[in-house]
């Protein structure tokens, strides 16, 4: 101990802090608590890695099977008409085409909304509100139990285990009576605090972050994360966000430990903080954002669509009557009929857009609200960030719904336009208009990821400031001494 302080007095504060940190690292890693938590965490990471890989593989299998079935179904459907004359309405209303959302690029890392929302849609309705093929609908019980993924593991269990590693970082020294002894030497409080923080953070990195890195590496090596620049970016950012998140909990643990009179009080305060911040706040905030900006209930919108259709049909019939009047009572056929139907579809879709535009605005406001309120809970920031990185956030799902919605309209308009250009044959699969999934396949948004990391670092800095201010006035003496 003497060497420790004499050397520290002649060196920079940072070196002294590093010395304290290395001591914390050594004693914790070799202690029973560090070993138990490491073993426990490795088991959890192995389970979550395996779970992520299984889910990813199952989703790809279902996607491939679905995509292969579309071409077969379309060919069967085409054959079912035999030599019947071609009618555009067959494609508009009777086609068997289904469009599939490919599994998110980082599905193995973070499940996000994957199991709650569907994976495919039949672009036949006038307005798509949701996808089908929801896993949750098939196994509500499975959904009730939740999904095991690396992001969820770090978000909840990782935070708790970080607390378990750091809750007595300072208070234990006080309880053992060694705290006052340290400061009998020329050691600044800030240096001591920094040393403790670095030490516990190093322990957290070795105990929790390194096994996590191993899990992500295994996922990459087994092909569950795309072997591309985009896949690598997502994996690296996932690890960085994990590091920033664990750093927040480390700082919070040291801060509370620097304020608490005893380790028992520290653990109670930190457990309460964890319950509120990691477990309750994300749920409350997400529900609050949804209730602040309620979208029209699906049943209510469904109720409006027949009326919108009826209004458009009135105009369509008027145009048909006008045509008949101008053509000696002849019913419109061929190109003329196609033009009238096209005008009807355009009017109907414009009416739907007018009604749904309100919901689109509300959804944007809700997203903004969620992102703003998320700053209140680092766990929610972490969950949002990892879901965005993995592509399992609501935005990708919504973008795909919009794309299918646009495609459904295309499948109604396209045959009519084709007829107008003089093509009057049943289309083959290759002739169909291409499906444009739009933003559903967007690449990683680095700006958003770094913004989330920034928020977590700001929260870390605030916690560190609180720890420093509290420790400045911390009573070093043993209770009752």
């Amino acid at each position, binding site marked *: 101990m003497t060497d420790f302080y004499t050397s520290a007095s002649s060196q920079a504060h940072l070196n002294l802090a590093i010395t304290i940190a290395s001591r914390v690292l050594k004693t914790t890693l070799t202690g029973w608590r560090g070993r138990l938590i490491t073993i426990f965490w490795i088991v959890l990471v192995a389970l979550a890695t395996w779970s992520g890989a299984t889910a990813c593989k199952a989703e790809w299998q*279902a996607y491939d099977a679905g995509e292969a079935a579309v071409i077969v179904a379309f060919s069967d459907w085409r054959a079912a008409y035999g030599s019947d004359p071609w009618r555009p309405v067959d494609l508009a209303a009777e086609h068997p085409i*289904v469009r599939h959302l490919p599994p998110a690029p980082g599905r193995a890392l973070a499940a996000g909304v994957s199991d709650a929302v*569907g994976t495919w849609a039949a672009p036949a309705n006038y307005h798509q509100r949701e996808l*089908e093929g929801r896993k949750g609908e098939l196994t509500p019980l499975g959904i009730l139990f939740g999904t095991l993924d690396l992001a969820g593991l770090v978000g909840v269990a990782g935070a*708790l*285990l970080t607390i378990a590693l750091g809750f007595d970082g300072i208070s234990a020294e006080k309880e053992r009576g060694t705290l006052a002894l340290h400061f009998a030497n020329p050691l600044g409080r800030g240096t001591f605090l920094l040393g403790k923080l670095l030490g516990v953070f190093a322990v957290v990195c070795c105990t929790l972050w390194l096994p996590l890195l191993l899990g992500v590496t295994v996922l990459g090596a087994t092909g569950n994360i795309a072997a591309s620049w985009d896949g690598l970016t997502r994996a690296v950012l996932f690890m960085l966000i994990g590091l920033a998140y664990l750093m927040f909990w480390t700082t919070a643990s040291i801060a509370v430990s620097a304020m608490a009179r005893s380790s028992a009080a520290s*653990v109670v305060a930190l457990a309460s903080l964890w319950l509120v911040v990691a477990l309750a706040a994300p*749920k409350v905030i997400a529900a609050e954002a949804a209730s602040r900006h309620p979208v029209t209930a699906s049943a209510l919108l469904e109720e409006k669509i027949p009326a919108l259709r009826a209004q458009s049909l009135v105009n369509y019939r008027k145009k048909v009557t006008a045509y008949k009047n101008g053509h000696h009572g002849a019913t419109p056929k061929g190109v003329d009929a196609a033009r009238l139907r096209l005008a009807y579809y355009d009017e109907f879709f414009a009416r739907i857009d007018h009604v749904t535009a309100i919901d689109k605005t509300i959804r944007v406001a809700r997203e903004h609200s969620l992102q703003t309120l998320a700053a209140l809970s680092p766990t929610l920031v972490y969950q949002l960030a990892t879901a965005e990185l993995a592509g399992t956030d609501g935005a990708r799902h919504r973008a795909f719904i919009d794309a299918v919605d646009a495609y459904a309209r295309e499948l109604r308009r396209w045959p009519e336009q084709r007829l107008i250009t003089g093509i009057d044959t049943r289309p083959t699969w290759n002739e169909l208009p291409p499906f444009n999934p739009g933003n559903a396949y967007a690449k990683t948004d680095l700006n958003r990821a770094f913004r989330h990391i920034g928020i977590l670092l700001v929260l870390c800095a605030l916690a560190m400031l609180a720890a420093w201010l509290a420790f400045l006035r911390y009573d070093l003496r043993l209770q009752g001494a």
Partner: protein
Amino acid sequence: MRYFTIFWLELLQATRDVRAGLVIAVASLFFVVAFTQGNERVGVTASAVAVSTAKNRQAWLAQPPQNPHGAAHFPVLLAKPTAPLASLVAGADGILPGHLVTDAHRLLPAKGTSAADAPFAQAIGTLDTAFVIGVILSLLAVLAGSDLVAGEKERGTLRLTFANPVRRNRWLLAKIAGRTTGFLVAVTLAASLALMIAGGVVLGPSGLYEGMASSAPNDVMGRLGGFLFLSAIYLAVWITIGAACSVFSARVASATLAAVVLWIALVVIAPRAVATIAELGDPIPATSPARMAIRVEEVRLRRQQEAMVETLKASGGLKGAGAITTTEGPAAVRDIIDAAAARAQAKADAPIANWRERQLTKLDAFGCISPTSLYFRIAAGFAGTDGQRHHEFLNQASAWRSAFLERLNRLEDRGIAEFSDYPSVAPFQFKETASQRIWIQQSASVATMLCMWLIILLLCFFRFKHYDLR
């Protein structure tokens, strides 16, 4: 009498302890949030169901006279009412569709999931009463039990106690019973306090009242009784797990750490792992090929139907027939086609239905490894927010649609050209399963929970016999 005194002293100590105050403060805070948000959640859904159903009914009644088959084309909205205890247990309701719309020629899929509109909120989960009890209070419960024996040992009072003629197992039983009762008293106080703070929302409109409106009040009370009974056993299980950690440890610190590790394993990890293990070697099948196959089959059958109708027309069998008969054939033809469509649907859905059954069996079996997964499953069952009630809704809605179409099409078959008696078609009314039946359905699971409790208790007794008192 001696053991009753131990029980009583433990109860008094548990209620006077600073931790009882912490339990009351934490539980009441979370209960207030859960009650308020549960009430709002159910209120929004219930109001949307009421308004959309009323509008749809109004539109049905306002139709002009038309041929019966034309009336059968009206899209009737069949909405699922909110579950009796939905404000307490959100369960799987958010990811299950809330309504379906009838179609004269095909069975349309149910729609309207909350998850579609708020997917992230759904993925994160809901802070409902079941979550407060199942996750938050279980942590407090296991911590409350973790110093039961080790605490006495550290204080040195354990040897003192057994210097008297006290039997170890009876003493332990009295202590666990006292601690459990004290904890449950604190939770009851917290719930009552939360109820007062939240203005009794959970009992008012959109809360249990909403459930009572859709089913008999006795049934709601029966379900509520089941939920409360289950919650009490569940918390007792966690206090006993805490006591078990204490009996297996010499120090409070190690008992507490073991209790927290067990809690993470059984509450945070096990239920999720169960779902993954259940899918091992049996991944979720692709659901879209079934939909596409049914769609193609519909076109084939319609062409077959058209051919049959043409043959009948050619033979003069449809002379003087009504609109539906001349386009879709007589009842006999329609029945053949409907039966073929139902067979095609069943064939296409079979792999998915089989997978679902296998999955349910596995989840039922594996779910028992964690009291939390068991608790959530039974709680959703009592609340009516599980898959079972949803399937009951789909069955009832499908039966209503069949009867609706059957009636209108038969009118046409009887040669009635115009239908205007719209009020005679009674609106769809979902019949809730009686609470007695729910109790019977859940009895095996509740018994499993009780067995779990008993096994942990026996484990405590066995270990405590050889516990070093020094």
